[in-house]
Structure formats: structure tokens, C-alpha cells
């Protein structure tokens, strides 16, 4: 991403929609429409914190037809390294932020005969915009939305109103669970499944769909890992010839950027593969938190996705 191309936005609406999720409305500072996007897109929000810059990916949840504002939902992460806390605690109506143009890594397949959408918790956000793209399209779809309890079901009213009996809700608190085996075993040929939610849910959907014989190309998922906290470590950048300290609450990518070295990225959430970096030397373990590298590649230990992954080591040398 090229940061020169960010768009200045102002926060014009904030609503606490569940105990943990805040809903933000953003409008262009320059006025007028924001760029057109497609359902499933995310933006990177650039936040100027007191002592550092946060850049977090958030899915656009509003209608692609309504471009006077962008809407995002932000869950307060328990172990946040700052981005979600900044949005929850520091951002008020009138705050200014920078955003990048939307990118879609979770688009609807245009030749699908049917869409099955599965959301867990905050994972509902990209699916809300996908639903907007499906309205009036003539392709059948259904939505399965799983949350801890009714009070944690963000945007439930909106969904009930628009989706009617296409919406199926499941509350953990009442012991309700999505029956993935039945759901995925009984879909017509040409159905595509989209899942966004906690890692366990995504892995379960992928495994179940594969066991039911679904082709990989019909299984879509998105999960942005917030970069987890971890131990501090040091990294040497071989081409730049500098050492960089990575503190416990800052990601490897953020630390490298703070040292003035650019790394290409799209998602900052371990999905797109764009920040893929070669590991030249290592005398410990890599802690892979991404969804991009295969298990085999992770085991090889010769590459890392610095946006979400870390290391537990004395010495790490990267090809940067």
C-alpha cells in the first residue's frame, strides 16, 4: 500500500452496539462521496496515537450503494496492542482519521448458484455488506449468525428487518450451535460458503466442507488476526543493515515501519500474503499467527508474515 493515497475522514457517528462493539460512521473530510466498493471489502484505518501509529484493518459493513459514509464495527480486543482501544477510548465524534482505498479479499463469487454465509460475533461485519450486494440479485442465500447471547448480537435489528427468514441466529448462552455437518452436507451443487468469525469456527467450517467434498474454490473465509502481544525480541534487517527492537505490544511490521523501512502490505491481518518476508537466520522459534502460509511452510521456518507473526529467539535476520 502506498500511504500517500490515503483519504482523510471524520467520525460523524458512534454507537455502542454491544458491550464490546462500537459502530463508527466516517465521512470524507473533503466532502462528497467516498470510493465505490464491493461487499466483503476492508479498509486500513490509520490512527495517530500518542507515541505510535496504529494501522488496523476493518471491514466495511454499510451498503455499497451509500457512499456518503463508510461504516465499520470495532470490537474491543482484550489484549489489544492499542488499535481497538484507541478506537474505543480516544475516538470521538469529530475525530479525524486516515483510511486507505477499500480492498476486497472476501468477495462473493459471481457465478455461484447459492451463497451460504456464516458469521461468528464481530465476523458479521463484512457479511453485512455482502448481503447488500445480494439483495435483489436473484441468487438464493442464507445467513447463519452465531453469538454469545442476544445482547452480543450486533446489528440484529438491521438483519431481522432486511433478511427475514433467511436469517438464522444461534445463542451460545442458550446452548444453540450451528449444525455445520448437516448444513454443509445438504447444499445444492454450485453453492459457495463464506465464513468470518473466530479461528475455531473458520477451521471447523473449512474442515467440514472439505469432508463433505466441497471444492476449495467454493470455500471462502476471512479472519483478520489482530497482531497478538508477545515477548520482546530483536530483528536484524539484512538489506537495510539495521537492528530493530520489537516491544511486546507492537507488531513486527509496525516496528520495522517505525524504523523507516517499508514493507508492502494489503491487509495487515495475516490474510493477503503481501508482506511475506524471507527469514535468513534464526536461532529460536517463529510464532506464526497468519492464515496465509501452509502448515508445511510454517514448519520450514524460512519465511514469516510480519504483520501478525512474531519470534521467540535470540537472533532473527530478515531479508529486508
Amino acid at each position: 500500500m502506498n500511504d500517500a493515497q490515503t483519504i482523510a475522514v471524520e467520525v460523524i457517528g458512534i454507537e455502542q452496539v454491544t458491550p464490546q462493539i462500537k459502530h463508527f460512521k466516517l465521512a470524507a473530510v473533503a466532502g462528497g462521496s467516498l470510493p465505490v466498493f464491493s461487499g466483503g471489502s476492508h479498509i486500513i484505518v490509520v490512527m495517530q496515537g500518542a507515541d505510535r501509529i496504529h494501522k488496523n484493518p476493518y471491514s466495511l459493513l454499510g451498503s455499497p450503494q451509500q457512499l456518503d459514509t463508510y461504516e465499520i464495527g470495532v470490537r474491543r480486543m482484550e489484549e489489544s496492542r492499542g488499535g481497538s482501544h484507541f478506537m474505543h477510548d480516544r475516538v470521538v465524534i469529530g475525530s479525524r482519521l486516515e483510511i486507505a482505498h477499500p480492498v476486497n479479499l472476501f468477495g462473493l463469487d459471481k457465478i455461484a448458484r447459492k451463497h451460504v454465509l456464516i458469521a461468528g460475533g464481530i465476523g458479521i461485519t463484512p457479511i453485512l455488506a455482502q448481503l447488500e450486494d445480494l439483495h435483489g440479485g436473484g441468487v438464493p442465500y442464507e445467513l447463519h449468525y452465531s453469538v454469545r447471547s442476544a445482547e452480543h448480537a450486533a446489528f440484529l435489528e438491521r438483519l431481522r428487518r432486511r433478511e427475514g427468514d433467511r436469517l438464522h441466529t444461534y445463542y451460545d448462552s442458550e446452548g444453540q450451535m450451528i449444525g455445520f455437518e448437516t448444513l454443509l452436507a445438504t447444499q445444492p451443487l454450485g453453492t459457495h460458503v463464506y465464513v468470518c468469525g473466530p479461528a475455531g469456527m473458520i477451521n471447523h467450517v473449512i474442515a467440514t466442507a472439505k469432508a463433505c467434498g466441497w471444492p476449495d474454490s467454493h470455500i471462502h473465509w476471512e479472519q483478520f488476526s489482530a497482531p497478538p502481544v508477545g515477548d520482546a525480541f530483536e530483528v536484524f534487517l539484512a538489506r537495510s543493515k539495521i537492528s530493530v527492537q520489537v516491544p511486546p505490544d507492537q507488531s513486527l511490521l509496525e516496528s520495522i515501519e517505525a524504523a523507516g523501512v517499508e514493507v508492502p502490505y494489503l491487509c495487515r491481518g495475516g490474510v493477503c500474503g503481501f508482506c511475506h518476508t524471507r527469514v535468513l537466520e534464526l536461532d529460536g522459534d517463529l510464532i506464526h499467527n497468519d492464515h496465509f502460509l501452509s502448515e508445511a511452510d510454517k514448519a520450514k521456518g524460512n519465511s514469516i508474515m510480519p504483520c501478525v507473526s512474531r519470534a521467540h529467539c535470540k537472533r532473527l535476520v530478515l531479508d529486508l
Partner: protein
Amino acid sequence: MSAVFNLHETFRDDFSYRNSARAIRRFPLPFSEDSYMYSVNIEPHLPGPPGSVTEFAFDVDEHYVAECRERAIVLAAEPLRYQALPHMMSSQWDCLELIMESLARDYPTHFSLAKQGNRWHWINRPLQIDQHFTFGDTATLPRQPLDYITRQAQGDFVVMDQREGDLWTEAGMVTTQADWSLDFDLGMTFKEWHGPVPLAHELGVFDRALKFLLNLRLGQPVRRLNWTMTIHPRLDTSPENYPQWGTDRATVTAQNAGDLVHLRVELQGLWRLPRSNAIVFGIRCYLVSLRELATVPKWARRVHRVLKDLHPALVDYKGLTRYRDAAVEWLAPFDDGSPTTPGTAPE
């Protein structure tokens, strides 16, 4: 730029197509040095210097009216030069929006676009078109949106849907192509479509190009130049019409090459489309005869050297085998062996 249009020139029959002195000097020469090897050479499609072919998103030049007329002639005979699969409708509107907004912004004397919500008013003065329509409602346009707008644009357009980690050629307007066919390639993936380019697979260029394009970002279009040669200023050198143009090659001699042989340069632009998440691939064709080219001494020397030393596999692939030697012989008197300055500028 307010181009004065060459209203009556033709790309067939009497081939009255000509470049003005100004058009020659802005010709996008694809050779930045005296030798050539295939590469992907993709760069950001940023505005070039005033007057250059990359000053604006879509270049409108003195051939605009004549090229639109040539397109209409081809389509009247072969309607399948325009095709779109049904799931490509949102990308069609994306393309219409991109082209109308760009032309109206960049050439306000020729084009204008007024919007009131979804009610749009489009004026194309060179083609004398005045159209009110509702954006998103196909019934309010005389043709499908992509068909409609690309009949008013120079160059071919191919729209690729992105799914399953690949790009699928699934809509397009192709009437000025250099020897490939939309009818044949519709539904192909990126690598199938580019399959025949020799040497490129070994160089791994397509794997890298595909990865790059899958990540192409909204608002950050890219471009590259490609080239071949064509006998006569013939835009439509399609495989379907090979019988009409294939035999031209045998008529070239060292005496007539200056007028018959044309350098054909494609300015290829790629844009991510916002609603459909598809990619539109614009292929804008520029033709210049060797005689026109030779009015720029540096270019004459350079093109002579490039053609003389071209890799044999590329000579074959680009279809130059029968007349390359004649073209080299025609250019030889312009090459005194003196060095050329780096880059493509005329001096």
C-alpha cells in the same frame, strides 16, 4: 488537448490513415535501448507529461473519430466482437463510469457528464451523442453499458472477473486486436490467455504478473507497453480475418517497406473496478509507418538495431518472419552507427 480529428482517414481499403508531425513526436516508442527482450515492465499508470499519450487515463487523439467509425464497421459485420457473460453486468457499469468520468474530466471541450443521483446526462461532441440515462438501469441505454461506452472509446477492452485466485476473461470489446480473438478466449484464465508468448513462461513472468494483478488496488491503475508490426495501418488483424491480411506480408520489399510496414504499439492499462471487483484491461493501439518513424533520426537508428538483433523466437511469435529483413534493409540507410541517447524521447 483539443485534438483536431482526421475525420476521413481509413484503416482498410485505401488505408488513408496518417500521423501528423505532432502525433509522430508523441508516439509511444516501446524501446528504451537498442535491443529488446520480453518483460512484463508494469508501471503505475500515473499522469505523464502534458501532450504525452499517458497524460490522461484514456488518450483521445487525432484518430478518435475515425477509430470509432472503424469499430462500427467491424461490429456491423461481426457482432460477436463484443461479448459479455451475464454475471459481468456490474463490471459493465463500472467500465462505463470509469470511461465517462475520465473523458469528461480530461477533455471537457469534447465530453461532458452531469449527474443527478442515478440520472446521468452524457454528451460526446465529436460523435454528436447526447444521452440521458439511469445509471444501473440497462433499459435506459440503447445497448449494454460496455458495448455502449466502448463504441465511443479508442482501443480494445477486456474485462476479467476475479475468482478462485485467478482472472477470467469474461467480457470485452475487441475490434482492433493484434491477432487474437475474444470469441476464442472468452472464459479463459489469465495463464491460458497468455499461453502462447514464447520465453515468457520460462522467465516466470506470468506467475508474477498474475500475483501482481490479483492484488491490483482500487485507485492505483497500472500500465505497460507491448508491440508488434502490421502491414498497412490495419487495426483489425484478427485471426477471423486472416485471409484478408495474412497475404499482405508477402508484398513487402526493401523498396516499399517504409510505407507498408507499421510499428504497432499497444498501451495496455489495467484498472481495478469498484463494484464488481473485476479488472478492466484496456489495449490502446498506436500505428506508425517506418517512413513516419524515420522522421525522428534517433528512432530510425534504434528501431533498425532492435529489429536486426531481435531474438528469433520473438521474430516468429510476432509474425515478422516474412518481412523483417526487408524492414531492416529499408531502415539501414538511416543508421550511421552513431550512438542513441538513453530513453525513448525523440532526441
